[in-house]
């Protein structure tokens, strides 16, 4: 080993040690966090989806763990209701507000009002300039990883059905943009136009009929290689449609890691190709830790990424298990 290489290794080792100790320090401070006597407002656009429910629970559980009081608001997927709840919440003057998902265009003026009222704002999975911290998965990674997995499974060519109904939701925008970026390197993979629209509610049924229609329109085997969605509920409908049509050459891809979808990916016979599984409960908890740190006068970064795992046909049995166990523990099937 030459001297310079030795130096490099030493520097790397030092860096690693420093990183570890940093992690240890932040870990230690997380132990001392407290929200005693603090009221934390939590506003979620809806909790009808596994991800939303787990993150919402993670937030509430962590606030209570830290001794704080939660004002938990679920808008039931109604923008009007979420705005009304935020408006009343501002009047309640909690010590901090954690906002979880929703339409950014609708929310932004109201998030601004939260800051104008002097209330610290934290967000879960919602990138906005008004938040002190946004806790989320690394959606840039997720978007690229799932797109690359799809391209690999397709052998670098073929047609993709893409659900793009929620481009106004920030995380979906990132994942979709990453998909497009990856595809610039693979010109033989083409998105079928017009793109499909995923909807809420009736997501599964609607995805099922959309994909069935498209498969009927392109009856030759191999004319469609994959279905992509920025979350995994449309993926459920798409997978069922592909299987019902007997078109098992079509694989489906999605993001979130609902237990139902992880089970599909684990099933060798299922057409679900891969799913990027996030840790919504951890994301919720981490956002509360960030709020607690901020209220204790500590510095908080503008965003925190909680690790996610790409579960595909090869690693599903091993990587999927802990996620299913976590879901079971939380009492969600």
């Amino acid at each position, binding site marked *: 080993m030459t001297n310079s290489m030795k130096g490099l290794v030493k520097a790397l080792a030092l860096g690693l040690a420093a990183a570890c100790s940093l992690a240890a320090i932040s870990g230690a401070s997380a132990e001392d966090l407290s929200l005693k006597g603090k009221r934390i407002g939590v506003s979620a656009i809806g909790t009808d989806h596994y991800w939303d429910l787990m993150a919402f629970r993670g937030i509430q559980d962590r606030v209570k763990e830290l001794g704080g009081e939660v004002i938990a608001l679920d808008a039931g997927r109604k923008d009007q209701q979420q705005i009304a709840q935020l408006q009343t919440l501002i009047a*309640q003057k909690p010590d901090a507000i954690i906002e979880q998902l929703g339409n950014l*265009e609708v929310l932004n003026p109201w998030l601004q009002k939260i800051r104008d009222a002097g209330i610290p704002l934290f967000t879960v999975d919602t990138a906005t300039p008004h938040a002190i911290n946004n806790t989320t998965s690394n959606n840039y990674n997720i978007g690229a990883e799932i797109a690359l997995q799809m391209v690999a499974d397709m052998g670098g060519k073929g047609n993709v059905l893409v659900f793009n109904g929620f481009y106004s939701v920030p995380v979906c925008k990132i994942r979709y943009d990453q998909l497009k970026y990856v595809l610039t390197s693979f010109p033989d993979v083409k998105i079928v136009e017009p793109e499909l629209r995923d909807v809420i509610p009736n997501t599964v049924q609607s995805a099922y009929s959309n994909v069935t229609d498209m498969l009927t329109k392109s009856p030759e085997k191999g004319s469609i290689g994959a279905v992509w969605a920025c979350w995994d509920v449309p993926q459920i409908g798409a997978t069922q449609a592909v299987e019902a049509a007997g078109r098992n050459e079509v694989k489906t891809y999605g993001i979130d890691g609902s237990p139902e979808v992880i089970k599909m990916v684990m099933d060798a016979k299922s057409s679900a190709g891969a799913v990027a599984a996030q840790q919504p409960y951890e994301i919720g908890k981490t956002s509360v830790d960030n709020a607690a740190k901020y209220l204790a006068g500590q510095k908080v970064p503008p965003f925190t990424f909680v690790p996610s795992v790409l579960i595909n046909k090869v690693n599903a049995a091993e990587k999927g298990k802990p996620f299913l166990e976590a879901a079971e523990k939380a009492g969600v099937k």
Partner: protein
Amino acid sequence: MSATVLHGEVGVSDEKQAAAKSAGRRFGALVVRLGAIAAFAAIMAYFVVFAPGFTSTFNLINVVEQSAILGVLAYGMTAVIIGGGSDVTEGGIDLSIAANMGLCAAVYATLLSMGYGDFLSVLAAIAVGMAVGALNAIAVVGLGILPLLATLAVLNVAAGMELTLTQNTVVGASSPLLGLLVSGSFLGISALAWALIVFSAIMIAVIHGTAFGLRLYAVGGHPEAARAAGLSVPFYVSFTYVLSGFCAAVASILTVSRLSASTPGSGELLLSVLAAALLGTVFSRRFVPTMGGTLLSVLFIGLLANGFQLLNVSSYWVNGVQGALILLVVAITSFARGSEGSR
């Protein structure tokens, strides 16, 4: 001859019995009605005492603001029920009103985002709203379809058109009018709250202060008598559906201002609109829908959600309580209507 007399006597005693029965029911209805109002008052009193910040001016103005969209829609629904009669199955009802608002909001936001000014965009939204109302009128008055079914069909037409227009996406919108509605205020009351106050004043004045309003009640209460008195029943009924469409259009502009966009899912409001219009009947002695009653129940629904949040009671309860109240009121109204024995 004697048979006729006998028959007459039987008829009289029947009538007496019926009258006694009807008086009893009327008394029962009165008790239940006062009971319902007392329940409303008790809930409010509880909030006043226990919900922190409930009575602050700021909070109350917030609630008025939050009730504006629901209020404007509920006035449309109330007008339709007044003109079509308040029989729940065969009377006037406009199930399309919330979906119509969604369509108008989509038209308004889309035109704004295409660069048309407020004037044209507002005009277009109102034209679309009234056109959907006119479609209801044609189906109900022209084709004689039950309002419940006719407006259900039109609901689907409006929702489908909205989806076609927006592709189920959020359409962002900003304009001077929207800016004024969002941030304008006068005498410490926000523009949106003013919108509800002014609209309420107009509706109450038109429906309860003019001969036109009185005739509308006549048409809804007893169409045959109204026709015999020379009123054009089809005209009045048609008018209520077009008015309802107009209300949907006005509400759509308020909704776009509040959400800075047109968003899918407006149809969700229908249950609250129906609840407001039906709950409002409790505030009238004869259990008929009134604009004032509707206003009170709209504010009550707004205060209910607000009070629960201030008390930190789960928002899931609001829907349950709202549903229970509708059930209660519909039960009371059918009970009271039985006493009139007109239908």
